[in-house]
């Protein structure tokens, strides 16, 4: 309680200090207060007891709210980098109910912060705490109200402690700006629990929460205090976080050889959780799942939610559902859900207490769809789209579908990598690294902007863009990879070098005199060859399905050579951007050989893609068996790759990925995913260190 002697003084102080800074506590322990209007204020002078409004938040990031902590006070309003109170986007599923659902719309609405109240005691741990300074005894009519800023009203959920017991039962939902708190609670101080129901950047929310705590007395005197909170940023995982589990998709006999090799590599690398196989039917485990985390300080250490993002791959443009619905009816095929189905694992396998799934997408990838006339003949549109004769022409519809289908591959998460932590040449530190994404030069060949906007607004891992549109699959992980190393930076960059690949073939032909040496021995492009069948001994195919080529045939293949030269130039342009952004030296760049060919829709690896590997540990890199020419019992490509990585202290674990993956335009990285250990240093402390 503060005792003032005259109304005049009250008013003057109000004008001077209300609503800003942390001066209210420093300047004579006065809460900021003001009259709603002089005409409504008390008339005359005399002594008035003013309850002091004071909000406490964990601005120091110590894990507790402490009114005596100078950092909690100093960073309450405009926190310095590395400080400021945080709120967790409470998107996990502590009651473990979401996995019982099956529909995408239900999945998207199934998370703790969307559930009324606090789900259980575990859920309570995901809440940040807000406290008010006890007022002591105040007049019966005194009321307190906590407000949030208008932009955050729908983005946060508040709960108020109404009982003394420990746990969730002691809290009730609180509606900011409406629910009044009486003198009894004010006297002892009020405790709120706060959670966010979305990430910063979702639905236009900037992630900043402005809190106003207002106490109004019987005399119409109002005391206010303010605090700033921020939703914890989403941080994407990078290769330097040690792997905990490795995942791939169980395709039965189709990828049994791959799974066995990968399991050997994972075991050899002592990955704690080993290899787990998912039952999605989708081979590209990297592409439909992206791992990140959100964390805030808690009383017993960080409170963390592992985030699993579902890829924004669309089965069709959402605005054209009517066309596609009719088309699938005509095809007598099941009408698919809007999003890639395998991504549902973020709500099933990767969901529960401390694990959250989230889909960030726009049904038209941020493109403006053309409007269909009300009386349009849908069947005629379908005919037009297939290039069959139609009564009308619908080029805008075709263009919209084409740009969405063309850009769709960019939303697979093989196209969202994280460059490990580094300091840029301009001195800017990126303690969590930077996101690397691919796009084309034209505005229509880019990923759905929803995730890019979310990444941008986190302001922690700004995006570096490179051109991947020349690739059929168009992912950054096709030509660029990162491995932990003993360089000064702690990591190195691997990149595709088609020039080296051609040199290796020329060495075999010219230096070893073996132009007839073969690549792709015993490999088949045979999965669809009707003469091939899978047996317990592997693929049983006729020789006509053998993929084998001699060194001379490859060097003489105009299309392979043309595509490989083009790839060398395009990869060089990609690397140049990364080098400029990061300041990498030549001795931090490691070339790995493979050739390209063109598929009409873009380039892809002709020899197995060895850059597209999985960094399991600082000294273990799993990648595709290259199936290069064998000289004296040694695969010439494999030997070169091992010699490139040996100086980094990296052992290569070869994984047979020809079937399904190489023939499906991918490699080991595309086929796998991982959960990773949390960094030893809390993200906010890194931020503070790098201030």
């Amino acid at each position: 309680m503060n005792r003032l002697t005259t109304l005049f003084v009250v008013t003057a102080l109000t004008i001077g200090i209300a609503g800003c800074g942390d001066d209210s506590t420093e300047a004579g322990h006065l809460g900021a207060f003001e009259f709603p209007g002089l005409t409504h204020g008390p008339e005359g002078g005399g002594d008035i007891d003013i309850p002091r409004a004071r909000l406490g938040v964990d601005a120091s990031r110590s894990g507790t709210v402490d009114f005596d902590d100078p950092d909690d006070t100093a960073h309450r309003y405009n926190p310095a980098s590395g400080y400021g109170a945080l709120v967790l986007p409470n998107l996990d599923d502590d009651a473990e109910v979401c996995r019982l659902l099956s529909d995408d719309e239900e999945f998207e609405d199934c998370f703790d912060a969307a559930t009324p109240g606090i789900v259980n005691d575990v859920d309570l741990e995901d809440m940040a705490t807000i406290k008010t300074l006890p007022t002591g005894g105040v007049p019966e009519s005194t009321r307190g109200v906590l407000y949030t800023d208008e932009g955050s009203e729908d983005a946060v959920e508040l709960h108020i402690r109404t009982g003394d017991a420990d746990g969730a039962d002691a809290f009730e939902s609180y509606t900011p700006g409406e629910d009044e708190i009486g003198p009894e609670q004010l006297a002892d101080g009020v405790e709120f629990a706060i959670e966010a129901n979305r990430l910063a950047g979702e639905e236009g929310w900037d992630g900043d929460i402005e809190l106003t705590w207002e106490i109004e007395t019987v005399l119409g005197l109002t005391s206010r205090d303010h605090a700033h909170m921020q939703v914890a940023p989403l941080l994407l995982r990078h290769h330097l976080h040690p792997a905990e589990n490795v995942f791939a998709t169980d395709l039965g006999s189709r990828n049994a050889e791959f799974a066995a090799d990968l399991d050997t590599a994972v075991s050899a690398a002592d990955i704690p959780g080993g290899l787990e196989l998912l039952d999605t039917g989708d081979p590209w485990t990297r592409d439909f799942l992206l791992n990140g985390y959100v964390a805030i300080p808690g009383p017993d250490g960080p409170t963390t939610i592992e985030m699993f993002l579902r890829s924004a791959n669309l089965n069709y443009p959402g605005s054209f559902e009517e066309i596609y619905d009719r088309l699938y009816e005509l095809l007598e095929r099941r009408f698919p859900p809007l999003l890639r189905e395998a991504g549902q694992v973020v709500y099933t396998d990767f969901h529960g207490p401390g694990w959250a799934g989230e889909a960030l997408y726009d049904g038209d990838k941020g493109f403006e769809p053309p409007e269909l006339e009300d009386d349009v003949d849908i069947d005629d549109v379908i005919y037009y789209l297939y290039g069959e004769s139609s009564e009308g022409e619908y080029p805008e519809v075709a263009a919209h579908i084409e740009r969405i289908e063309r850009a769709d591959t960019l939303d697979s998460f093989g196209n969202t990598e994280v460059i490990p932590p580094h300091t840029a040449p301009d001195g800017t530190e990126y303690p969590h690294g930077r996101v690397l994404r691919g796009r084309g030069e034209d505005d229509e060949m880019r990923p759905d902007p929803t995730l890019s906007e979310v990444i941008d607004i986190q302001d922690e891992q700004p995006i570096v863009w490179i051109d991947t549109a020349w690739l059929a699959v168009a992912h950054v992980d096709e030509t660029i990879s990162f491995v932990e190393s003993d360089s000064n930076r702690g990591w190195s960059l691997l990149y595709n070098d088609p020039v080296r690949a051609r040199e290796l073939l020329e060495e075999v032909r010219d230096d070893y005199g073996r132009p007839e040496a073969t690549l792709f021995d015993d490999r088949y492009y045979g999965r669809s060859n009707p003469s091939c069948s899978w047996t317990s001994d592997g693929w049983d195919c006729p020789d006509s399905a053998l993929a084998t080529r001699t060194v001379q045939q490859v060097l003489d293949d105009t299309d392979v050579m043309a595509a490989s030269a083009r790839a060398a130039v395009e990869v060089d342009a990609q690397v140049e951007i990364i080098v400029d952004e990061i300041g990498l030296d030549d001795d931090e760049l490691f070339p790995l050989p493979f050739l390209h060919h063109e598929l009409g829709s873009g380039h892809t690896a002709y020899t197995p893609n060895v850059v597209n590997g999985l960094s399991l540990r600082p000294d273990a890199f799993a990648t595709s068996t290259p199936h290069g020419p064998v000289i004296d019992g040694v695969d010439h490509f494999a030997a070169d790759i091992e010699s490139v990585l040996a100086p980094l202290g990296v052992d290569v674990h070869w994984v047979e990925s020809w079937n399904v993956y190489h023939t499906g335009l991918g490699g080991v990285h595309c086929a796998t995913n991982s959960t990773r250990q949390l960094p030893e240093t809390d993200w906010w402390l890194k931020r503070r260190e790098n201030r």
Partner: protein
Amino acid sequence: MRAVTTIAATLVCVFAFAPQSMAQQTAPAPEFSAHPEVRHIADELEETWRQNPEAFRQVDAIREHLRQHAGRTARPVDAVSMLNNGGQDLLLPMLWAVASDNPLKLRMDLRSWRSWRTALLEAIGRLRDERSIAVLKPVVAGNQPHAAIRKTAASAIGRTGDLDAIEWLIDHAKSHPPHRKAVVGALGDARRHSALDYLLKIVKDTDETRALRSVAIRSAGDWANQWAWETSSLKPYRAEGERGRRAVIETLVDGYPSLDDDLRSEAAKSLQLAGATEARRRAQTRAKNAERHRYRTDWRELAERLEDSPLAR
């Protein structure tokens, strides 16, 4: 509702047609000559149907694989390698598929259909067989709305090296502005001088749109790709290739200062493909002899870009 009736009729046909791949060996040959695009090879198709029905069955099987897998994983299926693995034996069945495949009959969704068409056309293009030209021209000239299909068909025509066919492509590009970008993008694979002349004309023409000039610069680089010219299949045309490479280097180096930043990036890539070392020498010479400081700076910058080219190692 004409279309509905037609589609319904089509679906009825699906079931009559679907067992084809299973029972092809005993099925009567289709009326190849009824399809104008393949009339010139109708006899060969019929002969192949009798002698090597397996080839038709393989194409059907690869298409079925693609139909089942494309679209489910947001990733294209490499049907090109599967088709090409069958070599020349699959050419006629592939041409037949281009002429006769009906997506609704085959129950192919749009994404699968487009992937399939593109793969077929690319695989046909790699075989560089002049018999394909008559089948491919309607794809280039048709009203189907997908640029990638048109471009791949045009590329396949260009790769045959047939001068008349290349002339037809150029005429088509000139007379069909909506198709121009796709055809110009494909002419880099038509490694005959007439195609390059047309590309360089567009590169130099500042009245052309920036987008088309960019495509033409890229295409000129593909045309002049030194690694391609070093392969044995282009050996008979190597002298033509040498002249063309020099023309690309001269045009792009000399015009470099007049290009904006994005076009310069594309030009630098094309120059690397055409011959980084020769292009760098020319840029250095131009810089040395340039009277205007700005040009000197531009050519020096180009020379530096080319110095670091991976293709100059």
